């Protein structure tokens, strides 16, 4: 899958985001998967674009920030190009607890931050789910679907593309 195609998918996704202001939606980006316009009782509230790394983020639910104090939304799904973020990054030596590896939706996955972060390697993307608990993160992962409708929720996701796990895939 090329990033131009993924950009097309992003445009398709934006059509689904009825509650999000079109003025705040990125014009281009790589989302091939998201969790729908609602997930686990939370509405899709924002679609963001990561600056340098070039990922697209889907924010579900809301939180209250104040002066000098940001807040974490209840659920977030980030879709990264596998050339920039890939599970092999966690095999590099660095301080931190061991990463729990597993399989979610039929593809390689990593559980981090006590399971509140799950990273799935599928096709030429790395999908990162942030949630308040491991169980919610798994429910969000189960709800992931292709924005073009090619992959519905609950079924196996496309296997990682060549070089995706090791980060050797071209951007």
């Amino acid at each position, binding site marked *: 899958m090329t990033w131009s195609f993924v950009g097309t998918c992003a445009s398709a996704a934006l059509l689904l985001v009825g509650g999000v202001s079109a003025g705040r939606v990125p014009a281009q980006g790589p989302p091939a998967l998201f969790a729908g316009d609602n997930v686990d009782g939370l509405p899709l509230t924002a679609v963001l674009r990561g*600056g340098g*790394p070039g990922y697209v983020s889907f*924010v579900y639910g809301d939180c209250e920030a104040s002066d000098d104090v*940001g807040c*974490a939304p209840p659920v977030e799904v980030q879709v990264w190009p596998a050339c920039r*973020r890939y599970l092999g990054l966690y095999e590099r030596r*660095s*301080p931190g607890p061991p990463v729990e590896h597993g399989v979610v939706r039929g593809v390689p996955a990593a559980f981090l931050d006590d399971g509140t972060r799950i990273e799935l390697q599928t096709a030429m993307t790395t999908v990162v789910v942030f949630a308040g608990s491991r169980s919610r993160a798994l429910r969000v992962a189960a709800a992931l679907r292709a924005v073009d409708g090619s992959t519905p929720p609950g079924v196996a996701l496309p296997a990682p593309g060549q070089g995706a796990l090791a980060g050797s895939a071209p951007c």
Partner: protein
Amino acid sequence: MGRFAVVTLLVAGCGLATAAATSAHFDASGRYTHRACPVGASTRTDPVNVVFQSWGTWGRAASQIESHAAWTSTSGSDQHFVDHGACSVQHAQRASGEGSRFHVRLRGQHWDPALGWAAAAAAHHEDLVLFPLPCGHAVDANGPGGSGFDQGRDALEAAFAAAGHATSRAWWGNTQSFKQCDGDYAAADGWMLFIGLHQVNHA
């Protein structure tokens, strides 16, 4: 004291010593600061994106931030760090001013066999938002040059590298987005910065 009590004390003592030995390392599992204790995913506030090492006590880190980056203001709200499961308020904070500014919060951690003395830090650049609704300090949203979190880390990296300190980066992946008081979102790029400190502080 009976023999049973002595044996019990010895066993307990050995257990404590073993626990201390196994916990005497830098705890990299706390990759975010928190607005309050007890902590959970919903209390996360900022990503931890800098670790001072070698002689990286929090006092040395604060002193050398003042010397190399000229961030001398101590104003700002308190946040909390997690170390070996314990939630504790920051030890120090430094900022480059009072309005739109760079800002970093620090918390000393365990001595680590590989890192030496270490302190975790959460750095960012934030704007003082007064319009259309005054809300106070908000971390810069994601942009081509990275978010305010990335800008704060990069500013410290540049200042310390220019002063001859060793720096390196490691992937932590703590890229969760954080809503700010102006309604924008900011997220780190997931790369954590190590800065080596020396023993002697600057005058």
